[in-house]
């Protein structure tokens, strides 16, 4: 019964190559869709530590689910579904309510020149504010707003969230109104 026979050099190399092959395909997938993970991660967490943890958890879940993906949906639909479910589950697990202010540059890693700093800071603070407002939405509204901002079709949103296309329209309007109210409360007028 000792399966260590599979561990002989040849088999080890074979399995390693196989995993490398899959890993490369997975890497290409993440190269293409990394923005989704970032945006979902930012929308479902309040601080950098949680964001990094959720980002990693989404990657691990996607990698685990990758072998079972049968191609019966679009790759992006599958990816959104897994990532959103992971984010929602993550948040349920955490159940931590942090009220502290987010640091404007908490997630920014790129260097900025002195000339562009002011503009960059303004943009960054707006991005922070947008994520802050999205975070305050209900979890269903958060998902629909994310997909809406990503310009997904109603059909694709329905596929990802498991709701009807008609329901998508209703939910988008409701979520947008709530988001606008939150932004207005922060002192912004034209949205």
């Amino acid at each position, binding site marked *: 019964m000792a399966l*260590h026979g599979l561990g002989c050099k*040849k088999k080890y190399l074979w399995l390693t190559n196989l995993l490398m092959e899959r890993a490369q395909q997975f890497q290409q997938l993440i190269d293409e869709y990394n923005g989704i993970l970032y945006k979902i991660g930012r929308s479902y967490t309040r601080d950098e530590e949680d964001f990094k943890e959720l980002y990693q958890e989404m990657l*691990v879940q996607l990698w685990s689910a990758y072998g079972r993906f049968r191609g019966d949906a679009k790759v992006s639909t599958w990816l959104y579904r897994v990532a959103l479910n992971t984010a929602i589950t993550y948040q349920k697990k955490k159940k931590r309510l942090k009220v502290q202010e987010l640091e404007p540059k908490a997630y*920014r*890693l790129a260097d900025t020149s002195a000339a562009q700093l002011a503009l960059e800071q303004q943009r960054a603070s707006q991005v922070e504010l947008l994520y802050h407002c999205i975070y305050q939405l209900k979890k269903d509204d958060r998902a629909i707003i994310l997909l809406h901002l990503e310009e997904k079709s109603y059909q694709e949103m329905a596929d990802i969230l498991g709701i009807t296309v008609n329901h998508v329209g209703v939910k988008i309007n409701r979520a947008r109104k709530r988001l606008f109210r939150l932004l207005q409360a922060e*002192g912004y007028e034209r949205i």
Partner: protein
Amino acid sequence: MKEFNINDTWKVSGQEADQYYAAIKNQVMEMARQRSQGILDRIIRFGRWELISGAIVWCILLVMAWSDFNSFVVLAILGAVTFAFSGRLYFSMLQNIRQVNSLHTKEAIKQYISILSSYHKKVANYVTWGTFVGFFGGLAAGLISDMEDLWEKLTNWMFWGIILVALVLLYFLGRFLKSAYLHYSIVKFIDELREVLEGLGVEELRS
């Protein structure tokens, strides 16, 4: 009141996402691969653990039986028969695996799954029959060692009742333990190989 353009801001967020990803890209696969790399490690660890623990248990049993010559001989014979059967199964499985042409990945995985599935079936049968043969062998050995009361025991319905209950218990307990152990030692690896195969199938469809 200030202006806020959601769509523009969202695009800036996309740029941030790219910057973030560029910074962590090298770690991405390391993060994601943590679990899957375990397939190899677990196969190797399990085989090593199985061999070492089997050898230790066998040595302990032999040492314990050292003082009783008859038990020692019975244990040694049973051990030899067990090793002969399991060794034959194991080495035949290994030989089949070595004969697989691993150049064609998908075909190779299919053949590995087939070999391991057949090995699993054979081991399951072997354990089932081995358990009952061991049980009746032990019973016969016990009866022979005490020949004086033999006829009295054979005609006692209580004796047969206990044997029957023991057999039923052995059947259910043995079945449960066998299934759990085989799942842990073989079936889960087969399932993981199947998952890899399915993953490759999907990739082929997409490419």
